[in-house]
């Protein structure tokens, strides 16, 4: 499943943020931008957000729900949740290993 995230290329980071945002519930574009900014400090531009959304949608990792006026909410699919979990597990493993090594080096001999 990780390969499906790899296929997103330069959009993989925004896609990860979008999937993480949608893991907390269905959201439309504006709600996602605000949630991602609160979560990561990254403000996604409209082109970046919709570039990631179109790729995730065409890969079946998210689902477009019926439009509410001009807004359209999105929902993470089972495949998207699985891809997100796998990607976050890898990131967590890298983060844990890196932090452990930093602490070991910083500890007095």
């Amino acid at each position, binding site marked *: 499943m990780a390969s499906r995230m790899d296929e997103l290329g330069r*959009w993989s980071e925004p896609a990860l943020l979008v999937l993480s945002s949608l893991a907390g519930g269905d959201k*439309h*574009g*504006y709600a996602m*931008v605000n949630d991602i900014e609160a979560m990561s400090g990254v*403000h*996604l*531009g*409209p*082109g*970046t*957000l*919709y*570039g990631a*959304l*179109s*790729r995730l*949608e*065409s890969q079946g990792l998210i689902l477009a729900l019926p*439009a509410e*006026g*001009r*807004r*359209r909410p999105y929902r993470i699919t089972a495949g998207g949740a699985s891809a997100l979990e796998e990607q976050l597990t890898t990131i967590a493993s890298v983060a844990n290993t890196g932090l452990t090594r930093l602490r070991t080096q910083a500890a007095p001999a």
Partner: protein
Amino acid sequence: MTGGGHRLATRAARLLLGLYPQAWRERYRTEVVALVEEDPPRLRGLTTLVVGAADAHLRPAGNWSLTSPRTRMRLSLSAIFCCWIVLSLNGIGFQKDTEDTPFATAGHRHPLLAIAHDAVLSGALLGALAIAVGGLPLVWQALRQTYTRGDRRLGLLLLSPALALAAFGGLTWLLVTISPARHDGFPLSFVLGVQAPWRIGGFLCAAVCALAPRLVMARMELGAAVLRRASLTTAALAVAMGAVTLGLTVYACALPLQAASLASESTAPIGAGTGVMLALYAATAWIAGAFGLVASRRALGAATSPS
């Protein structure tokens, strides 16, 4: 950002959305406009729209899979009509350039030339039939909507090819009337004063004729049944495009190859200018034919997919 800055940013974002492919715009434009109205982008946000548009053009298959079969049929049909019109104008130019006696003589002496010429004419006939079966119901529906909705712009778009052809006819008549007497060759004054305006007029007329179906289909409401029928006829149109393209190519290649034997005749039609024109017709036919075949495949795929 001030109120004026908000409006400017929103307007710039709307303009930049025009850079995206049509299929993408049909799927996401409304949402993105709603987003930029709520969260007006700064310069960096606007640049993401430029980068996103470039990415969407480089990855058309992704956009395509997200559009409905009806939209896919509509976009494919407008593309194939545009290609057919380009190919038709090419064919008319070919027919006009090869209608003189020397070409008929060459055709009698070399069956390959006659076969290639007939292939172009047969393809044109088949294509015209396919357009009649698939395209006329669309035109009829557009006419009805012009009347029932009182949509003058749709009516004007429908009339635009006829108006462009009339204007081109008028330009031709004017140029023929005012052009100086020419006894031999093509002096520069004749080329600049008569041929160049005529060719520019022809190009503009062709552009209007090629774009009109796309604009009409984007404005009107299209029923699924009429779209599906028109999409299915693109199979015949694809065969017709193949015949015209191959016929033009064979003719453009065979005529120079026969130049040596034709040179012995006093009515030898081949010259450098003829060879260049035929090569241009063949090259344009390959481009229009290739795009047309892709559009036909997409239209057929959308017409046969479950909606």
